């Protein structure tokens, strides 16, 4: 057919088909993104709903009479601090007989186990407090904390409830006397781990993670960049360097638990480094982060236009001057982005740390890279395993803290990328 309009007709006919395909593709892409966001929102909402209560902590504020009969200056730091607390609390409650052992046992349990130590530390620091009445704010124990946060239903039959009517009655009196407050839970980040959920905090894990990440950064950053520069700029391109390249890419894909086993046998077994130490954790994480940094650095170096290398070499710069004076500075944003993403990955890594013992129960923050510590993800692992109700919300809170750090690190990476992005 020699119809002059045949081409345009054919195009028009196919145009409908092409546009439909495009619509389908767009729709699929959009729904994939919606699905991803839905999952993310579900995660965040579930974490926040279960974790938000851990960001506040029920405290009790009361006047404590530091009874010289119970606490004697000559016996410090020993003394009946718990009895002094119980006696003081008794004065706020109606119908209690403090000489009755059963009653005092009940009252005593309202305080967190750490309350007597808070009082002790105050008195030891200033012995002149003995004989005086001081105002003291201490956490209440976990069951009362949960009660105050509304996690214990008062309509549950008494035998199935963690607190009986008598205990709830006492606590209600304290609430009515306005002794109970629910301030922000700074203890979550200023306390180390504890058996008692109301006292447990993330300080040990935060400091441990910080040390481990510092060690990881100090080792993987220079080594990774050095390896990448050598491979990209200086190594001859032959079978051997191809083999190295393939192996580095494979190394990035090795399951992290394998690195943990390696670290266990090499760093702890052979080198005799201490168990549970952030130094070992950092070394292990460095092994895992290095391939990521090498790959990111090589990509960043590759993306520097060859014209810059030619310009420098053409002026008589040595290859080393060319790399360090021109190529590396231009690749730096890409390298930093890759490094931060690698470190964020390392921050969230759990399995290798479990194998080197960073999931131990440690009640004080580490004072150096060689003292025992936990890390954020392993702390989450420990808390998730604990039966106390208070730990459930603290687990979610700890995950939120970890996510907060990850989001911050990724935000820094994005910031660096956009700040230093260059147009050629």
């Amino acid at each position, binding site marked *: 057919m020699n119809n002059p309009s045949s081409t345009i007709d054919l195009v028009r006919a196919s145009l409908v088909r092409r546009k439909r395909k495009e619509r389908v593709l767009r729709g699929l892409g959009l729904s994939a993104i919606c699905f991803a966001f839905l999952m993310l929102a579900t995660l965040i909402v579930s974490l926040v709903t279960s974790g938000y209560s851990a960001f506040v902590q029920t405290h009790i504020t009361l006047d404590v009479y530091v009874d010289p009969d119970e606490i004697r200056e000559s016996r410090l730091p020993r003394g009946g601090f718990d009895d002094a607390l119980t006696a003081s609390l008794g004065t706020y409650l109606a119908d209690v007989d403090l000489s009755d052992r059963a009653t005092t046992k009940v009252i005593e349990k309202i305080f967190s186990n750490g309350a007597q130590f808070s009082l002790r530390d105050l008195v030891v620091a200033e012995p002149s407090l003995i004989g005086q009445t001081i105002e003291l704010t201490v956490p209440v124990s976990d069951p009362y904390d949960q009660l105050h946060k509304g996690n214990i239903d008062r309509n549950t039959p008494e035998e199935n409830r963690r607190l009986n009517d008598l205990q709830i009655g006492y606590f209600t009196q304290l609430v009515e006397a306005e002794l109970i407050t629910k301030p922000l839970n700074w203890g979550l980040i200023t306390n180390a781990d504890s058996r008692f959920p109301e006292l447990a905090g993330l300080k040990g894990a935060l400091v441990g993670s910080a040390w481990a990440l510092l060690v990881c950064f100090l080792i993987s950053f220079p080594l990774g960049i050095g390896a990448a520069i050598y491979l990209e700029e200086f190594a001859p391109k032959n079978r051997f360097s191809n083999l190295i390249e393939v192996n580095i890419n494979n190394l990035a894909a090795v399951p992290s638990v394998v690195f943990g086993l390696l670290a266990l046998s090499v760093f702890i077994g052979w080198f005799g480094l201490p168990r549970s130490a952030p130094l070992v954790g950092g070394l292990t994480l460095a092994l895992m982060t290095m391939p990521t940094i090498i790959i990111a650095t090589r990509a960043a170096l590759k993306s520097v236009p060859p014209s*810059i290398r*030619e*310009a420098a070499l*053409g002026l*008589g710069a040595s290859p080393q001057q060319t790399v360090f004076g021109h190529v590396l500075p231009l690749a730096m944003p890409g390298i930093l982005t890759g490094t931060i993403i690698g470190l964020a990955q390392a921050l969230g890594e759990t399995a290798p740390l479990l194998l080197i013992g960073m999931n131990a129960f440690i009640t004080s923050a580490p004072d150096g890279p060689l003292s025992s510590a936990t890390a954020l993800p392993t702390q989450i692992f420990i808390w998730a395993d604990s039966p106390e109700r208070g730990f459930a919300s603290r687990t979610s809170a700890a995950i939120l803290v970890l996510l907060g750090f990850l989001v911050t690190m990724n935000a820094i990476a994005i910031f660096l990328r956009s700040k230093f992005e260059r*147009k050629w």
Partner: protein
Amino acid sequence: MQTAATPIDNSPGAASSSTATKIKAQNVDVFYGDMQALYDVSVDIPDRMVTAFIGPSGCGKSTFLRCINRMNDTIATCRVTGDITLDGADIYDPNIDPVQLRARVGMVFQKPNPFPKSIFDNVAYGPRIHGLARDRAELDEIVEKALRRAALWDEVKDRLNTPGTGLSGGQQQRLCIARAIATRPEVLLMDEPCSALDPIATAQIEELIQDLSSRFSVVIVTHSMQQAARVSQRTAFFHLGNLVEFGNTDDIFTRPSDSRTEAYITGRIG
């Protein structure tokens, strides 16, 4: 390690030896892996003149240019045989450091490639790495002189600290020329320096090339035969990796001895 370089006298009065050979190439073959890119090229490039390399795309003229300052060393598969001498010294001698050679043989590339640094730092980079200036005042002087010779000084003197990448295309290319001549090279290689520029910028660069040839030996690769005719005294015509004809520019354009040269010049091949 000092090579047997004769120091170049840059004073205007010393132009008597203008036909002296600066670079002598003999039987140069270049291979990229198994592929041969240049066949048996022999050419004498005179001092203080402009020599133009012309020829169709892929004829090997840029490859040959890059042999002169050993930029081909950066390509792993590239192999050069034959002799190229600069002032009588073999530049492929194992004792010759390519870094040192490139300080004597400057290069300007096809696409302007200023460093993403300030205008001043761009020009000062060469003198800095080679230690040509003893102090800041001397460096300032070198930079100003180079920018003046590149006919860029008046346009940038008030913004030496702004990035070189912010200049226009023609200005960037003149900045690259200033950068190349700031190290006081003896030879300036230019690989299609005007191909990315508009006619006005091209005219400025061509004027500059003429001016520079009173001090250096200038070798320019160009696609434009008019440009070769305008700026050069000697012309070499390359075709399919062979040096077809080499001689005075006037002769090449008016009385080519080879039929291929004539065909190219009259536009029948290319």
